[in-house]
C-alpha cells in the first residue's frame, strides 16, 4: 500500500499508522539516496566504457555496459513496484533468436560465414542492444537520476509519500514500456505461437497421412486384389468365389472401422453434429470413470476452439483413467467474460509430470495457438486438477462487454458533440463575420452585446472553446480505443 496523505492532528486514531507510514517512506527515501553511491560510479564507468567503445573501437565493452545500466534500471523498477502502486513494465525489445545454421552447416552473419554460432550470436546481440531505444533511455535515466534525486530532497522531507510517488512517475517516464516496445513484444509472441500452431498442425497432418497410408489404403488395395481373384474364380469355382466374397465383405467392414478411428482423430463426428457440450458428455459416457460434466456456455465457441478443448479434455480423461487409476472425475467448462475456462479434476493417485510422456505437452502445444495456458496440480497421492484458460476466445458480447466506454465518458462525448457547435459557429465565427462586415443586427450573439473592447476577445475565446470541445469529443473515444488495443497484450506466458 502506498502511504498517502498528510498527518492530521484531529485524527488521533489514525495518527499512529500514519506516523509509521511516514517513517517507512523516510526509510525508503534514504535507500533511494543511498543508491546514489552505486549510481554515480556507474555513470562514470558507463561513460568511460561508451567512450572506449565508440572512440577507440573496444566494441566488446558495449554489452557489459548496457547490461550494467539495465540491472540498475531493473532494480529501480522493482523498488518502485513494491513501494508504490506504479507498475513500470520493462521496455526492452525481445532477444534475437539463436542463429540457425544454413543447409551446409555454416552460420551466416551478413556476408560472412562462420563455422560456429558464437560470432553471429554475438553480432546479433550487439545489434539488439545497440538498436534498442530502451538501452539509451536507461542511460539517459541514469545520468539524469543523479540530478533529479538531489533536486527532490526538499519535497522528500516535507511530503515523503508524495515525493516517492513523484519519483516513481519520473522513473516511469524514462524506464516504462513504450507503444513500440509493447507492439514488438506482441509481434514476437504471436510469431512464436504461430510457429507452434503450425508445427502441431503439420504433425497432425503427418499422423493422419500415416494412418490413411498404412491402414485404409493398404486394406483397400487388398480388397481390390481379392475382387480380382473373385472375378477369375467366379466361372470356374463359384463356391470358392463366394467364400472370397465373404472375406471381402469382412475386409470392407474392417476398413470402415479403421476409417472411423481416423475420422475420430481428425474431428470427432459428435463434435461436428452436436457441439462441445454434447461431445464432452459423450466422452464422459465412454469413459470407464464416473465423470460429472458441468458446462455453462451460452453459445458454441468457434470450431477450432471447440476441437482444441475437446482433444484436451479427451486426453486428460484418458490419462486419469489409464495412469492415475481414478474412479471419479469432473469436467467443468465455463465462460469467464470473453475467456474460456476448463477444469478437469480426478481422484486418481496424482503425481502427473508434464516432462514425462507427451500427453500434457501435446495439450499445451494445442492450446498455445489460442494463447491458452495450462496449470497442473497433481501432488503424489492425488487428487489431480488441471485448469486451462483460453483468453479472449469467446465473442466479447457474451459477457456484455462490448467495445464500450464508461458511461460518464459516453455522456461527456454526447454532450460535447451536442453543444460544441454553439460556441464555434454562431457565437464565434458568425458573430465575427457580422463584426467584420459591420452588420447592425446583434441577434443572440453574446459578443456583440458586450462593450467594444470585449467583443474580439469574446469571439476568439468562443472559437477556441468550441474547437477544444470538438477536439475532446474526438480524442476521448480515440484514446479509449488505443488503451483497449494496448490492453490486448499477451496474457501470461505460454508453458512450453
Amino acid at each position: 500500500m502506498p502511504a498517502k496523505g498528510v498527518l492530521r492532528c484531529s485524527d488521533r486514531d489514525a495518527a499512529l499508522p500514519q506516523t509509521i507510514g511516514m517513517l517507512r517512506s523516510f526509510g525508503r527515501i534514504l535507500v533511494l539516496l543511498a543508491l546514489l553511491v552505486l549510481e554515480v560510479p556507474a555513470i562514470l564507468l558507463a561513460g568511460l566504457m561508451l567512450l572506449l567503445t565508440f572512440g577507440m573501437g573496444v566494441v566488446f565493452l558495449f554489452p557489459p555496459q548496457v547490461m550494467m545500466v539495465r540491472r540498475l534500471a531493473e532494480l529501480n523498477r522493482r523498488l518502485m513496484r513494491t513501494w508504490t502502486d506504479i507498475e513500470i513494465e520493462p521496455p526492452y525489445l525481445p532477444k534475437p533468436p539463436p542463429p540457425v545454421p544454413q543447409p551446409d552447416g555454416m552460420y551466416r552473419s551478413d556476408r560472412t560465414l562462420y563455422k560456429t554460432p558464437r560470432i553471429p550470436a554475438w553480432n546479433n546481440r550487439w545489434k539488439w542492444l545497440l538498436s534498442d531505444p530502451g538501452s539509451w533511455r536507461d542511460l539517459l535515466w541514469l545520468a539524469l537520476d543523479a540530478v533529479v534525486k538531489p533536486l527532490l530532497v526538499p519535497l522528500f522531507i516535507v511530503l515523503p509519500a508524495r515525493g516517492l510517488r513523484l519519483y516513481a512517475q519520473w522513473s516511469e517516464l524514462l524506464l516504462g514500456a513504450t507503444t513500440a516496445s509493447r507492439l514488438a513484444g506482441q509481434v514476437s509472441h504471436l510469431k512464436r505461437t504461430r510457429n507452434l500452431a503450425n508445427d502441431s498442425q503439420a504433425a497432425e497432418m503427418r499422423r493422419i497421412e500415416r494412418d490413411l497410408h498404412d491402414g485404409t489404403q493398404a486394406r483397400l488395395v487388398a480388397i481390390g486384389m481379392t475382387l480380382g481373384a473373385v472375378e477369375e474364380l467366379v466361372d470356374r469355382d463359384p463356391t470358392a468365389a463366394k467364400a472370397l466374397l465373404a472375406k471381402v465383405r469382412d475386409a470392407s467392414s474392417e476398413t470402415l472401422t479403421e476409417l472411423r478411428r481416423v475420422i475420430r482423430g481428425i474431428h470427432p463426428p459428435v463434435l461436428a453434429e452436436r457441439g462441445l457440450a454434447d461431445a464432452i458428455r459423450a466422452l464422459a459416457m465412454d469413459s470407464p470413470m464416473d465423470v460429472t460434466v458441468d458446462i455453462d456456455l451460452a453459445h458454441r465457441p468457434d470450431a477450432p476452439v471447440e476441437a482444441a478443448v475437446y482433444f484436451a479434455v479427451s486426453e486428460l480423461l484418458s490419462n486419469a483413467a489409464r495412469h492415475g487409476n481414478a474412479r471419479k472425475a469432473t469436467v467443468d467448462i465455463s465462460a469467464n467474460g470473453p475467456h474460456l475456462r476448463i477444469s478437469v479434476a480426478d481422484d486418481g493417485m496424482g503425481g502427473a509430470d508434464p516432462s514425462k510422456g507427451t500427453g500434457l505437452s501435446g495439450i499445451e502445444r494445442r492450446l498455445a495457438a489460442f494463447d491458452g495456458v495450462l496449470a497442473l496440480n497433481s501432488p503424489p497421492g492425488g487428487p489431480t486438477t488441471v485448469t486451462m484458460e483460453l483468453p479472449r476466445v469467446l465473442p466479447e458480447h457474451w459477457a456484455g462487454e462490448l467495445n464500450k466506454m464508461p458511461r460518464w465518458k459516453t455522456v461527456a462525448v454526447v454532450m460535447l458533440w451536442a453543444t460544441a457547435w454553439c460556441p464555434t459557429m454562431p457565437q464565434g465565427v458568425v458573430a465575427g463575420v457580422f463584426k467584420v462586415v459591420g452588420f447592425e443586427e446583434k441577434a443572440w450573439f453574446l459578443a456583440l452585446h458586450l462593450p467594444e473592447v470585449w467583443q474580439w476577445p469574446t469571439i476568439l475565446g468562443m472559437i477556441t472553446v468550441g474547437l477544444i470541445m470538438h477536439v475532446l469529443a474526438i480524442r476521448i473515444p480515440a484514446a479509449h480505443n488505443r488503451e483497449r488495443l494496448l490492453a490486448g497484450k499477451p496474457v501470461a506466458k505460454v508453458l512450453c
Partner: protein
Amino acid sequence: MKNRVLVAEDLYLLRDGLVHLLQAHGFMVVAAVESGPELLKGLVELRPDVSIVDVRLPPTFTDEGLKAALAAREKVPGLPVLVLSQHVEQLYARELLADGSGGIGYLLKDRVFNAEQFVDAVRRVAEGGTAMDPEVIAKLLASNARDEPLAALTPREREVLEAMAEGRSNAAISQRLFLSESAVAKHTASIFAKLGLAPSDDDNRRVLAVLAYLNSR
C-alpha cells in the same frame, strides 16, 4: 404383416440400395426421402410401420435425422425407427431409449452388408423390439467396467447379456451362442438376479430393463 417402410438417406446410391434390399425381402417402401424436414413430415403423415433413418441429413448435415426421429416419436409415441449412422454414440443411444417405449434400432451403416441380420433387425424394430449395435453395447459395457454386479457375471453370462442388450430374443441367443433355449433362460434368470432386476418373460421389456440398467450407471 408390418411391412410399410420409410427410408431417409441423403446418398442416392445407399438410398437406392436400401430400397432394393428391403423390397427384395418383402417390404413395401412407402417413401424414400433425403432431408430432415421431408423425413419429419413423412413420419408424422404416413406413420410407416418402420423407418430407416440416417443421422446426418441435409440441410445442416449434423444430427438432422436423429432430431426428426425423436420429434416424430414425441408426436406419435412408440413409432418404430431404426437409426443408421457411420459412427455410434452412447449419447444418441440414450436419447433414443429415453422414453422407454421400444421400437428403436440404432445400428452402424456397415451392418447393412449382412442383409439377413439387417432385415432381421428391421423386423424386430417394426414389431416394437429393439436393435442395438454390438458396438454400442460394447461401449456401454466398457464404460461400466468397474460396476461390481457386472464384474460378478461369468463370461458366458456376459455373452448372453451382450446378445440380450442388442435386442435378441432367447431363441436368437440360443442359436447364436449354440446353447439350448432352456440354458439361455437359466443364464438370463441368473443375470437378472445378479443385477437386481425384476424378472420378466416379455422379451422386449427384458431388453429395455437391461439397457436402462446399463445406462443408469
